[in-house]
Structure formats: structure tokens, C-alpha cells
């Protein structure tokens, strides 16, 4: 099972490279062309989320993305920030609420990210990391 791993210092600039990698590996999986931009977007959202979590909690470890080509194309993005009650969700609040509520822009972005991930990826999970450390966004696309 071909595996590609991509780990990066939690800085926004590397999220762009992560998107490139995800789309590039998906293309060679091969995933149909019309799905590539979805993979690119979804991987970017998952990586941004991980970087944001590392920053919020001051975690300097590398964010890790693992791409596996098997029966499906699976992308897993792991962070190593503390898991709170709110971390392991896959559904977002309603869009109309976002513009009204007095939530800060970070929380707002997080809700939008969840909404996007849910809309883009049918097979989506947000699970606890290995040994209970951090969280993993797991996305799969059938091949």
C-alpha cells in the first residue's frame, strides 16, 4: 500500500505545500480529475485546522499528514494539541448563526472549516489521536 507522509512545522506557509502534495498524490492514485480540487481543498482545511490548534495550544511538534493508496485514497491529518469536548465534531453550526453571533474570527473560521469538510468529504471522521494525544481528521475517497 503506497504511503506518502508529509510532516511540517505548524506554520501557515506549509499548508500550501501540503495542499500540493495531497492533490499530487491523489492525481497519481489515480482519483478522477473532478475530485482533485476537492481533495486539495479538504486537505488544506484539515491542515489549517491542525496548524491553528497547535498555535492555540503552543504545540511546536510537526503536523502530520499521511496519504494512503489502497482500496480507497485515504488522507489523515494529525495534530498533537489537547483534545477538548469540542474537538471531535464533524458537524458545524448553521451559516446564518455565524454572521449574527459575537464569536471571534478564529472560532468562526473553525465552524466554516467544519462545514466545508462535511460538504466536501462523504467519508469523514474526526477521531482522537494515538495514545489519546491530539486529533486526527480522516478522509477517504473510493478508488
Amino acid at each position, binding site marked *: 500500500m503506497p504511503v506518502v507522509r508529509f510532516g511540517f512545522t505548524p506554520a501557515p506557509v506549509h499548508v500550501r505545500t501540503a495542499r500540493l502534495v495531497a492533490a499530487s498524490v491523489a492525481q497519481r492514485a489515480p482519483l478522477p480529475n473532478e475530485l482533485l480540487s476537492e481533495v486539495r481543498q479538504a486537505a488544506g482545511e484539515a491542515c489549517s485546522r491542525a496548524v491553528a490548534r497547535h498555535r492555540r495550544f503552543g504545540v511546536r511538534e510537526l503536523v502530520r499528514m499521511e496519504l494512503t493508496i489502497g482500496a480507497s485514497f485515504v488522507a489523515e491529518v494529525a495534530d498533537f494539541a489537547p483534545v477538548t469536548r469540542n474537538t471531535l465534531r464533524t458537524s458545524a453550526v448553521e451559516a446564518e448563526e455565524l454572521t449574527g453571533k459575537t464569536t471571534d*474570527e478564529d472560532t468562526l473560521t473553525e465552524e466554516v472549516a467544519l*462545514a*466545508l469538510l462535511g460538504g466536501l468529504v462523504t467519508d469523514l471522521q474526526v477521531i482522537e489521536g494515538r495514545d489519546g494525544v491530539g486529533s486526527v481528521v480522516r478522509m477517504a475517497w473510493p478508488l
Partner: protein
Amino acid sequence: MTTYGRVVAAMDLILSTATAGELTVVSVTGEIDMYTAPQLRGYLTELLAEGVTRLAIDVNGVDFCDSTGLGVFIGTLRRLREVGGSLIIVCAREQMLKIFQLTGLQKVFDIRPQLPTDG
């Protein structure tokens, strides 16, 4: 200091402002993500601080936009509403329209394929 006609170009994002009647139009070119969003946010915040209330953001030059970008748009809309202002998103691009739809934000924003000609 006036911002009109100012062009800000970073490595990955180009921002420019023009006026169309009473409307202030910000055109964005490049990729809006976690890396470039702070620049866009700062640019828009400065415009609002200068008193702009009728704003349009033209995203037809945007190649990629993620939740961070949408977050900036939502924040801008909220602040404009607080002062009785308005925001138009000029967007004809398929890919970009799709992310507004997936998030349900197409119901929240006033999205138009091109600039309104009546100013």
C-alpha cells in the same frame, strides 16, 4: 491618506481598490488561505476604519479560497452591518461559488456575477 488606487502585492496575494459610483471595490488576485488571509483582513480593516460602508469584494481573480478566507468575509460583513453598511461579493467562478454553497453562506452573502452597474 486615501487608499483608493492603492495596490498591495505580497508574494501570493494582490489587492487593489477602485471606486464605482458610491461603491468601493476591492479586487483580490491569488490564493486566500491561512497564509495570506491576515493580509486581506488588515487591508479590509483599514478600509473600514477610513469610513468605507458600501463595499464590494471582487474575487474573480482568486484561484483558491479556504475557510480562513470565508472567515474574513464573514467578519467584514458583520462589521459593515454594525455601521449600516453593505457588502457585495463579485463572483462568477464555479469553484468559489461551490464553497459558498457547501457552507450555506450563499444565503448570507449578496453574491453577484459582476459589479452592479447602477453604482
